[in-house]
């Protein structure tokens, strides 16, 4: 007996965001970190801040933390991203 059956998946990839154009250099730039608020982000991001400043000449690092670590960034954080040259969004698990 032959069965004709249907695909249970959407069949198309979900919409994806586009990466911003890459920076030529990090020197003198303002970089934002968006933390999900978990314990592990604190030490990791502080260490990364040091590397970006010491080794890459980043001028300023801004730290922001989401109000819910399982949800997208809060609207006020998303708005603030426009004032940064680059953004790092990281997990803390």
């Amino acid at each position: 007996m032959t069965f004709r059956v249907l695909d249970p998946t959407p069949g198309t990839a979900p919409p994806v965001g586009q990466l911003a154009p890459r920076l030529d250099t990090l020197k003198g730039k303002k970089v934002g970190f968006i933390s999900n608020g978990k314990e592990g982000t604190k030490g990791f991001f502080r260490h990364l801040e040091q590397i970006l400043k010491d080794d890459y000449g980043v001028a300023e690092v801004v730290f922001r933390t989401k109000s819910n670590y399982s949800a997208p960034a809060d609207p006020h954080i998303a708005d603030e991203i426009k004032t940064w040259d680059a953004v790092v969004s990281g997990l803390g698990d």
Partner: protein
Amino acid sequence: MQFQSRSYEAESISAVQELYHSNGWTDGLPIVPPTEEAVKECLDWAMMPPDQLIGIEPVRGLAITAEKIAINAVMAGCLPMHFPVVLTAWTAMMQEEFLMHGATASTGGCAVLVVLNGPIRLEIGAAGSFNALGNSDRATAVIGRAVRLCLINLMDVRPGVIDRSTLGHPGKFSYCLAEDEEGTDWDPLHVVRGVERAASAVTVMAAGAPRQLMNEWTTKPEEILETFAAEMRANMRHYSIHPGNYAIVIPQQLREHLQAAKWTKKDIANFIHERARIHRREWADVGKGAVVRDRGDSVYTAMESPDQLLVIAAGGPAGGFGAVIPPWLGNKSHAVTVPVGVCVDCEPPKK
């Protein structure tokens, strides 16, 4: 009826199984072949065209259509009469406060608890008595499974893909129960949560595994409920201290003592809210002293308010066994109740 989905031919029932397993479209168990005829029967039952938009998942922007939910419902073993319940569960899960993406992707490994209320339980044969949290009946088994298959196939909630659960729990195969409304004089859950009594409704909650308890040695409401509160305190110590929606399942043997003493669900929730609370310093007793810090005297309640407790009457007639079902993680996700057959986005535009 015109379907958007790609179709495949398989020469035998075994070939169907291998097609679906090899593509990662199952939960590891055999599926019912989702033929065009079977899917059409589901859609006809709900009087929906295949391209009916059920909702758009808020985080990844995926459009969910009736056709895709019907395909997965058939695979789970649903009959057409089960399909509206699956649709309603999905409508509820796509409400922003449920936080579907977070709840289904989290390392915390919760499942979607689906609670059925109202006349539809009886129409589809959903039982809230013996083995209520297990394989109690066909309807709850397949509805709970359909919710999971939809997550797998529509949202990519596959282990190691979107689903990052460390452990998960068995409720991720199917986690659906019906309230035993005929076995209690309490208001059903949907009425407590603001839905008309005559309506049928589905409540979804991002839920951990049930924690079973037992107290067969008292008839006093306070003592019975203290056992439930103690289990919640244990969860707060061992798992998460943060307040959120908890559910408690109270079986008939324990309900009879509470009802004889004229305790309502509201009385129960008020009592539990007072008793299910701990000091942060108690974390030090269970190996979590490192995060007590200077807040040891802070008191944490299991729920922010009594109405966050979902009190459910269910379970076989004998045995003083109850269950506490904890939230995935505090208030990250909120339980959502939606009446069956009601459009949640159909209000006229506000001026």
